[in-house]
């Protein structure tokens, strides 16, 4: 038996508009670009809905109806769910319909697609809880398997997940960590006993996500039958093939003209042609197989670039400076208890903002350039820092307003007492 476990990651950030230094103190809207560029969040969402979410969901719905064995997982950031609600509610409905079949699992995540786990555990926990509530209210399900932003993973995160009742966690099946071992089995994270880690088969995943339309690739053009053969070749030396990729692979990263939709439409048929192959959800996969060993990641592992670490987000000085300044605001911003300020602060934690500041032009640069709506990493940094400076200012105003209010309140109660004391003194009473 060989099972295939696909999971598609659905996410859009709230991109920061070209917020100029002159806007600090004058404009409290950071995410409302209305230009004809990719900084306009509504415009991007509507475009991706048209090119990817709606046509892909239609195909996935067909496939679920046609193949009772077909199943897959989705992970949503809260930021994309908010934007579906605001700009394209029909997309949200189409996702709800898929989940209703009971054969689409939703994964746990941080609400703001943040790297909070590495900067503030309490903030990370608040975001996971907020995400869980949102998923429950929109889809009526509770996630059991965890996936962290950019598939970032470390031993202590797995330990946290186990402690908090998750049965599985996703990670990159990266050779330097695995050694001779295969990503097509389940492993136990270091320091854990119950939770199992599901490893991405990055070769087979990236064949679809990155290489599908590359004409220089020796396997181009790829069809579903050939791809199914590659998967079937793992019979006898693997239990689960975990195909993790961005949902937007279908129709956005790989355009319709590349044939990606036809590929998707035919893939289940091709995979199921082998009698001993079927699909499993992540929670079913962790229940079905035993762990074959320990997966030990003392550092941070992600799914990005050739480095598979966090350097795409916090590799250079401007990225480190920006993320440090963001989390430095935590205590103050929470103390304001102002939901608008706290929400803006959390939206600024989304990892994409830091990704846009990446300057690894020469090795991985093309990928970053493609995904950035800014003309340069420095433009991204300046817009972000100006917005964050405005937020700092608003937080300071809110806190001083609190102090003034508190002062007035204290005075109200204090004054009669002081007056009494003064009168006593005057009267010569000790």
């Amino acid at each position: 038996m060989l099972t295939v476990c696909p999971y598609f990651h659905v996410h859009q950030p709230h991109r920061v508009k070209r917020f100029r230094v002159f806007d600090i103190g004058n404009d409290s809207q950071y995410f409302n670009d209305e230009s004809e560029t990719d900084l306009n969040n509504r415009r991007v969402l509507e475009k991706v809905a048209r090119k990817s979410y709606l046509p892909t969901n239609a195909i996935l719905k067909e496939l679920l109806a046609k193949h009772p064995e077909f199943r897959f997982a989705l992970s949503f950031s809260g930021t994309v769910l908010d934007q579906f609600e605001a700009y394209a509610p029909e997309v949200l409905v189409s996702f709800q319909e898929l989940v209703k079949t009971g054969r689409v699992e939703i994964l746990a995540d941080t609400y703001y697609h943040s790297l909070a786990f590495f900067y503030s555990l309490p903030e990370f926990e608040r975001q996971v809880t907020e995400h869980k509530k949102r998923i429950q209210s929109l889809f009526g399900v509770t996630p059991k398997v965890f996936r962290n932003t950019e598939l970032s993973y470390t031993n202590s995160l797995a330990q946290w997940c186990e402690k908090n009742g998750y049965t599985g966690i996703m990670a990159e099946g990266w050779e330097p960590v695995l050694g001779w071992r295969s990503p097509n089995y389940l492993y136990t994270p270091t320091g854990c006993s119950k939770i199992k880690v599901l490893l991405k088969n990055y070769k087979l995943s990236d064949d679809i996500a990155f290489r599908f339309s590359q004409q220089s690739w020796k396997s181009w053009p790829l069809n579903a039958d050939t791809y199914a053969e590659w998967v079937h070749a793992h019979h006898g030396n693997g239990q689960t093939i975990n195909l993790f990729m961005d949902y937007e692979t279908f129709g956005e990263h790989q355009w319709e003209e590349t044939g990606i939709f036809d590929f998707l439409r035919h893939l289940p048929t091709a995979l199921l042609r082998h009698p001993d192959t079927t699909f499993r959800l992540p929670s079913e996969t962790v229940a079905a197989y035993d762990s074959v060993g320990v997966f030990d990641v003392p550092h941070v592992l992600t799914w990005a670039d050739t480095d598979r670490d966090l350097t795409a987000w916090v590799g250079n000085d401007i990225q480190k400076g920006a993320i440090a300044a963001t989390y430095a605001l935590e205590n103050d911003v929470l103390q304001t208890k102002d939901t608008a300020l706290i929400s803006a602060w959390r939206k600024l934690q989304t990892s994409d903002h830091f990704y846009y500041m990446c300057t690894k032009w020469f090795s991985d640069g093309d990928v970053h350039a493609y995904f950035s709506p800014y003309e340069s990493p420095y433009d991204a940094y300046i817009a972000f820092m100006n917005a964050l400076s405005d937020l700092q200012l608003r937080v300071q105003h809110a806190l001083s307003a609190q102090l003034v209010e508190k002062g007035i309140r204290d005075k109200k109660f204090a004054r009669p007492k002081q007056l009494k004391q003064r009168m006593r003194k005057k009267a010569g009473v000790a």
Partner: protein
Amino acid sequence: MALKILTFGWDYPPIKNGGLGVACYGLTTELVKRGVEVIFVLPRTQDVDGDARFIFANKKNGIKARVVDSPLVPYLSSNSPLYIFDGDGSRRIYARNLIEEVHHYAAKAGVIAREEDFDIIHAHDWTSYLAGLSAKEASGKPLIIHVHATSFDQAGSKNVDPEVYKIEKRAFEEADCIVTVSNLTKDIIVREHGADPAKIVVVHNGCTELAPVELTPVLSELKAQGKKIVLFHGRITIQKGPDYFVRAARRVVDVAPNTVFVISGWGDMEHQVMHLVGALGLSANFVFAGALWDEERDRMYQSADLLVMPSVSEPFGLVVLEAIQRGTPALISKQSGVSEVLTNVLKADFWDVEEMANKIVALLRYAPLDRQLTEYGKSEANRHSWGKAAHTIQELYEHISTWFPTPKNNQ
């Protein structure tokens, strides 16, 4: 067999007159190092730095008479007085005189081309184009025209000097190959002069790799007061956008009053710019430093927090490479050739004064930005050396020499 190149230029270090001489020096030095034999022709006797063999056209005797007969002098009637200049190299204002000098230079170039033995002609900037054409006519050797600027850049508009335009157009038509210092310049000559894009090669300028020298800073008193220094270094003329610099400064001072703007350079708009500074109430924030060269210039680079090059049309922009190589971050206009090769600089449209001001303030406010642009900029500048440019030019020479396999001698 070393290739011999007959090169025509207009000025050359140590004479200080802007980017052209610096570029010719950088390129020639590297070509000579790579075994190319360069015969460098200059119109006037002057001191020269470096290793090439130099010929000064004004030292050539007995050529005056030929000028009048020469078909290369279409604008001079037979009774026009020939302008003969002495050898002190004194700079003349860009005017009718210059056109005459250019024609005179061309006439001498023909004579030199008949006397010298070489494989290829290479003519730098419009003042040498006619010399190159004349040498080509005299020798039959292939001609490379090297475009460092066009009349459209100088004018900052379409209102170009018609005489210069005529020379450019003819040179681009008759040259065997055209080198431009950027895609921006290539696009201009294709669009405005109808140059054939098939014979244009883009070779970006470079900079001389140098070991950093720590100099005593200038303006230390201002810096001690915690003031930030923003530098404009270049000719004060319409092409370089000094007025946009002043207007951006106004916006910067609105939010960062502790900023001092230094203008280093000279030019025809100097008074106009000073008036603008006064009119915008910026007199206390501006320093006019005059033209600075060599060590004085480097001292200024090292003292400045940011160099701004707001050029309206900049074929390349060597000053940016020089500055970032010396550890000064730069904000440059997108309308510049250097912006095609640099990523670790800030960029804005020259007309977008708000955005320029936004970026100036950001650099002064956010220390990590300053740090990273300084560090990455330095190593990026060093990747764009004259050696790299000379390598491309040398390949071009070798390629062109195969078009004319048998050496022709015009006896």
